[in-house]
Structure formats: C-alpha cells, structure tokens
C-alpha cells in the first residue's frame, strides 16, 4: 500500500505537487494520470525518498521509504530506464542490486528469464535499445519479489508486443495481491491496464476513482442516430432540448439526451430510425476535457503572446 498525505513539493517557489493526497491499494492496478509536468514523476520520486517533500508525507506499507532497511524486498520501482551505467553488463547491474539487499544471486537469472533478457545478460546495458532497458528496469524492480511496485511510463519505447507483455505482467502482479502503481500519459493504455485511477493536473488531485466510474461520471451522453426522415427527427429533437450536430459518418450526433428518450421521441413523431447508437466517451476524451485547464504548456495562438507560466524542471 502506498499512502500520500498532504504532499507538497516546491522547486524554488513553483509547486510541482500541491497538497496531494491519495492511497494506492493492493490487488489492483492503479493508474497515475496527468499531463507532462503535472507532478507525476515528482510524486514518485518523493514516495521513493529521492526527493524530500516540502510538506506532507508519503509512506510505503506504513513506513517512510528512507526507513526501509532492505527496500528492494518491499518496493520495486522503475523510474527512468536510462538510469544505469551503460558500461556495465545487464547481469552485473542486477547482481550489484541483489547484493545491496542481500538477495540470493539466483534471482538475477530468474528475473532475466522473466523479462526475456537471458540471451543478452552478458551484454553491456549501454548497447541496449530503450525497450530492452525498460525490460531490464522492470527486472530490477522485480528482483526482491516486492509487494509494492511503481512504474513511471513503463511502456515508453516498447513495441506492440512489448506493450502487451507489460500489460499482462502488471495485471498478473496485481492479481497476485500486489500494489501496482503505474504512471502513463497513454490513456488508451490505462483504459486497458488500470482498474483504478489517480488523476492529477498542476500537481493537484483531479480524480481518485475507478476507471469505469471516472468515465461514467464525466461522460456527456452522445448518441448517433440515422433516419430516412432526418429533417423531421432533427426538428423533434431540437424542440425537446437536445443538441444535435451532423455526424462525420452520416446521420446526427445527439448530446444531452439518452438513447432511450431519443427512441421514444422518434416513436412519438412516427419517424423511422435506421440507427440508434450510444457512444461511450473514451477515457482520453474525459481526461482531455478535465485537464485542459491544468495543462502547463499549451500552444498559444500567435496573437495571444502572453508568456506561459514557467515551471521548474
């Protein structure tokens, strides 16, 4: 379990994380969403004791990370896959980590097998592609068989097969009862991988809820309708207060009215319907809508030359 309470981290005067509180529970994959610069990596660094919070606390299994005596046995983390010495062989990199936490040397071979790097174990990590480094970093995270796992953008640099592999791995780890905390800006990936979501923008909490509930709560119902008597249907819908716009695929997009109401209305006006298709907003749409006010760097039209707010690191 990861517990973050009232966490604030300032770089100079700019708060990167601002009074953030949330709990990551075991047995499910919790996604950590936010635009670039929203404070995801900072929060993870504070959880891992690498950065000191300006105020507030972050604990893992009830204890501050810096007080853990053999942390790799409790927490596995992949923050930055490039954070290793390129001149060291993959197996030696893992061996040094195993020694630091008094883990048996056999774990090196086991995790190399698990992440599919056994064949390149004796190659220097500097020669690895980003995808291979991600796998090595994931192997390092799993070395101590920890109950809590943190991954910062783990699918970065992975190909389709690699992304599917990590998705299955994360779900399996959560199913084993582990706490899995995963940041990503790839909404589609989160929708497939995460059960629960912690959403932040500008270092503040925007939502802490299940993926399904998040979409349901923030979705405005949109329904695609088609009818051979489009004009009559349109008039009836607008008279009843719906917002109607042409659908790029032909027909109309109706907002502000449920599919059931639209069907009843069509029946009432005796208009035949050829399609009545409710659209579920994707996580991406919901998320984009929620965070547009929180995006730090937004492209401004050339006429609006107001300086954007600078942010540390």
């Amino acid at each position, binding site marked *: 379990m990861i517990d973050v309470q009232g966490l604030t981290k300032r770089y100079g005067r700019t708060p990167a994380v601002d009074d953030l509180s949330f709990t990551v529970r075991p047995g499910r994959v919790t996604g950590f969403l936010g635009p670039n610069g929203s404070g995801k990596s900072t929060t993870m660094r504070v959880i891992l004791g690498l*950065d000191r919070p300006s105020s507030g606390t972050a604990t893992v299994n009830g204890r501050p990370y810096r007080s853990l005596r053999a942390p790799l*046995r409790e927490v596995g983390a992949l923050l*930055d896959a490039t954070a*290793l010495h390129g001149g060291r062989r993959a197996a030696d*990199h893992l061996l040094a*980590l195993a*020694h630091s936490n*008094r883990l048996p040397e056999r774990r090196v071979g086991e995790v190399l097998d698990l992440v599919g790097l056994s064949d390149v174990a004796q190659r220097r990590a500097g020669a690895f592609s980003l995808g291979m480094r991600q796998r090595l970093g994931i192997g390092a995270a799993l070395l101590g068989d920890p109950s809590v796992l943190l991954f910062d953008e783990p699918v970065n640099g992975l190909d389709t097969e690699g992304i599917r592999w990590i998705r299955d791995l994360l779900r399996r780890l959560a199913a084993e009862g582990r706490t899995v905390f995963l940041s990503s800006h790839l909404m589609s990936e989160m929708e497939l991988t995460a059960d629960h979501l912690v959403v932040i923008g500008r270092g503040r909490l925007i939502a802490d809820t299940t993926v399904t509930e998040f979409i349901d709560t923030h979705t405005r119902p949109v329904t695609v309708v088609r009818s051979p008597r489009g004009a009559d249907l349109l008039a009836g819908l607008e008279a009843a207060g719906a917002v109607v716009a042409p659908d790029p695929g032909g027909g109309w997009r109706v907002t502000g009215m449920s599919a059931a109401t639209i069907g009843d209305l069509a029946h009432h006006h005796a208009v035949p319907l050829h399609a009545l298709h409710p659209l579920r907003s994707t996580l991406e749409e919901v998320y984009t809508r929620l965070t547009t006010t929180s995006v730090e760097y937004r492209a401004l039209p050339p006429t609006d030359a107001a300086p954007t707010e600078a942010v540390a690191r």
Partner: protein
Amino acid sequence: MSGDLGDARAGFGEAVRSEWTKFRTVRSTVGVTVALGAALPLLAAVVAATGSLQPDDTILGASLLGGAVLAQLTAAALGALVVTGEFRTGMIRTTLTACPRPLVVLAAKATVVAGVVAAVTAPSAVAAFGIGRVLLDGDGYATGDPFPALAGVVLAITAIGVLGVGVGSMVRHSAGAIAAVVGVVLVPGLVAPLLGDVERWVGGASLNGVLQKMTQSSDATPEAVGSLGAWLSLAVVAAYTLVTVGGAVWLLRSRDS
C-alpha cells in the same frame, strides 16, 4: 513467485558488497586502478634511471615522491569516478532506491575505494622502493628509513582516494570533481612558497608535505612544511578528508537526487 529470499535485513556489509560488484564490473574504474598500480614503480624507475635527485636525497624519497604525486591524482580521480559516474548516468537514483541511506552509500563507496587503493598502492610502493634501491645502489645516496614511512605513503594516497569520493559526491561532475581534487593536491605546493612565513602552515597541512616528511625528503625543511611530524600531518589530512565526506553525506541527504 520466487521462493525463499532469505534474511530480510541489509546494512553496511551489503552496501560494501554491492559497491565492490559495481566497482569491478565497469572498465573505467578497473582501468584507473591499473594506472594507479603502475604510477609508483614507473616514476621510481624514471627518476632513478635519469638520476633526477639531489645529492642529499634519500633513495626512499627519490623512489616514491614523484610517483606519489601521480598516484595521489590517480587515486583522487578513482574516488571521484566511483561517485560522479553514477550521477552522470542517473545510476545514483537506482543506488539510493536500493539503499536509501546516503551515509551508508557514501561510506560503502569510500570503503571500497580505500580498500582498493591501499591494496594496490602497498605492493606498488614496496616495488618502487625496490626499483630505486636496485638502480641507485652504490651511487652514494642514503637509503632512508622505509618503515613505517612506506605505510604512511600508502595511507596518504588512500586518504586522497576517499577525499575524491567526498568531493565527487559534492561536485557531481567528473571533470569538476577531478579538477577540484587536483587543486587540493597541487595548489598548496605552488602557492605556499609565495606566502612567506605562512608557507610552513600551508605546506605542513598539504598532501605533498605529508609525503615529503614521510619519505624523509630533502625538500621537507621546517621552512617549507612546518615542524609538525609526518604522522601528525597525516592525521591533519585524514581529518579534512573525513570533514569532506561528512559534508558530502549532509549534502546528499538534503539535496534531491
């Protein structure tokens, strides 16, 4: 998923073992260690073969002084490299995640560097003295007292390796750290003669001053290096090495990684 993983506590011993594994698995640290071992015998041979010593010099001083400066610089670079290499690559974050106690991490690094420097320098200092004796025997030079002077030379060079760890951790960049330690090693010798009466204080607390006294060199006049004994001067060097490492630990604790 992984069976029994054994004892769940790890401390200083594990940190040292981990740092040793890291040390021996990278080419740069291994290469610098080889250079460190070669410095003393090589310079002893050059000095003796070219007869580059004063008539009142000892064989001990001639065999060790030139090489010791080189060995100090190499040891300092080695110490710095062990830390700055991790800051350069970001490996330090992985290290501090595996062992979140900066004091333990730096102490383990310093221990490995000290162990390697001492283990490599001790035989190479004896070899350098041996080379000097063979090449300069019968040329009319005093031999000098090799024991415990040789141990003092080894300790002084070892202290500089540890100083390199501390400075490397503070400065975080290889070039900057090495430049800083080179400054500490060489600048007192360049500046002290310009300082009149203060020279003996600066010279006496300098690393080179320690080595000159240890090897009973003719350069070790009270005017140049003060009247502090060789071992007391070494203690001064050890003291500021420890202060530097302490400062590095404090900085590592308070700065974000």
